[in-house]
């Protein structure tokens, strides 16, 4: 009996801009279990990023409820939100969002800095995670010296280092060519197999096809939410352990 990591009920969210108000999320219900591999699809402007921001406690919602690992997430002060993000959630973005003047190790270790982990320990851990992502040799390079795929692997290492319960990835392969996309996807699936829930926003059917469950958004409501019949259980666990 698995436990739910995300439970969303009748979620509403509007962007208010002066007098204009844009209703983006119009009553979403969804339930994602620990360790699931889910993709969210939908046309541009359907509210995918908005939903991901709410799930990542980067933004507030207006009505309904959101439980993260059983904790009711309501309007909270930023300090608390920052702590929950740090403890529960890893982020992977389309544009990587690495800090340009910090080298690979420092970028990966940053979440641990905010946990108060000692310098030596977090650098050791960062090196270990870089190793897992095949970036050990690039540990002391700046992000600008890395390729797109390497940058995204670096971002994944950074998302993993605080041992989150889930990873939210907003179009993680959006800026990559198909070959690198495939590598990054393989990596994300491997991470998922260690028991970390993975939620991937994507436009690409190829990517969605590799996830166990696909949620389709349309105009702020869930159009469909179903198991992916074509899902293949690829065996790549050997690479990870």
């Amino acid at each position, binding site marked *: 009996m698995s436990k739910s990591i995300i439970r969303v009920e009748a979620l509403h969210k509007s962007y208010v801009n002066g007098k204009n108000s844009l209703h983006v999320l119009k009553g979403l219900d969804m339930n994602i279990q620990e360790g699931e591999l889910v993709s969210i699809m939908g046309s541009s402007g359907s509210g995918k990023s908005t939903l991901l921001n709410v799930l990542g406690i*980067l933004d507030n919602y207006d009505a309904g409820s959101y439980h993260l690992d059983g904790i009711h997430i309501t309007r909270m002060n*930023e300090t608390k939100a920052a702590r929950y993000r*740090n403890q529960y959630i890893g982020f992977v973005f389309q544009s990587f969002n690495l*800090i340009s003047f*910090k080298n690979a190790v420092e970028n990966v270790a940053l*979440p641990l800095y*905010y946990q108060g982990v000692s310098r030596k320990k977090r650098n050791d851990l960062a090196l270990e995670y870089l190793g897992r992502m095949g970036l050990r040799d690039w540990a002391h390079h700046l992000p600008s010296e890395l390729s797109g795929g390497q940058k995204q692997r670096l971002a994944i290492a950074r998302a993993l280092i605080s041992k989150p319960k889930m990873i939210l990835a907003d179009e993680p392969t959006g800026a990559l060519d198909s070959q690198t996309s495939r590598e990054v996807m393989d990596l994300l699936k491997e991470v998922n197999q260690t028991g970390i829930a993975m939620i991937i926003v994507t436009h690409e059917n190829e990517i969605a096809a590799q996830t166990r469950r696909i949620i389709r958004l349309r105009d702020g409501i869930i159009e469909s939410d179903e198991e992916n019949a074509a899902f293949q259980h690829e065996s790549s666990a050997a690479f990870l352990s």
Partner: protein
Amino acid sequence: MLDYLEEILSTLKQNKLRAIMTGFSVAWGIFMLIILLGSGKGLQNGMEFNLRNIAQNAIQIWPGRTSLEHEGLTKGRRVQFTNEDVELLQREVSGIEDLTGRLYLWSEVPITYKSEYSNYTVTCITPAFYRIRRQNLIKGRFINENDQRESRKVLVLSQSIVDNLFKDEDPIGQYVKLGGIHFKVIGVSASPTDKDAKDALIPLSTGQRVFNGSHNVSNLAMTTAYQTVEANKQVENSVREFLAKRHRFLSEDQEALYVWNTMDSVKQSQGAFNGLRIFIWVVGIMTIVAGIVGVSNIMIILVKERTKELGIRKALGASPWSVVQLVLSESLFITALAGFVGMLLGMGVLHGATLILSKVYEGNPMIRNVFYNPSADFGVALSAAIVLVVAGLLAGFIPARKAASIKPIEALHDE
């Protein structure tokens, strides 16, 4: 802690040139403050140096001519002090501690030793004189009560006179001829402010008996029992009224007596120096404020440029407070470091000035009375340090608030 410092440094390194440029304005402000305060101190030290040869609560009175008619007496009368004035003042007016009459012998008296001779001013005093005008005793002793009581023919000479007359000989116990009469040298003295001063002092009673034949004194010098301006003024007024009654002139008559009340003038110039110091602080603080505004501006721009980075930090778990701390520490770091450099430079310049001035004094000792030992003491450095810390925090305040209000979603927005 080291960690924290490195976090600050890594971002500052990104903007090295800009950090240095803004740091410069703060350094300049502190530099100016230190230099100004040091110079003010130098002026004050000069004045205080000037007063090292007199008790702070001294009152000196010179007689003049009346300028107002009084009790049927015409104006223009000369006032003449005598021993009686000294005795009566001592007895009748309260608040006087030490009192001496001073008698100057004719302006220049030849003093002869063996074949050497020169003309000097000879002053006749009582032992109380040494408690009013300060002298350093170099050799022998000062004039004492016995000398005064017995009208001994003894003499205390300034070092510079001794240098002239005796060359390398020991003057103590030697006899010199003063206006044709033999006097025994009992001491060698020096003025604390002017090593070239040429004073020849003999007992008042001796001077009156041998050279003058009367009981006249040229002027009066006294110290009071008090340390406040008010109390000293009070004594001055009592003395003035007493003398007015005795010599029959109006106590309002400004020309009958010339009074120099040391405490009064010291306090007045101290007031002026306090005013100067406040002015210096105001100017210095304003310069520093300009520096603060500069640092603050740069920090705001930096924060703006770093919106994305700060947003990433927040998404990864940085609390608003930690971001505030980051920005505040950076601005504190810039101001503190720059300020410290400015402070060191300022102190260095003052130190150099002191060294150069000490050379100048050798050629022209009078400069010491105007400007002496300019320095910023520990208190000034401490105040400057406090100003710096406050300045750094102030400079970081607005940018830090801007940084704290950055929303991660907006910062991370893909463009």
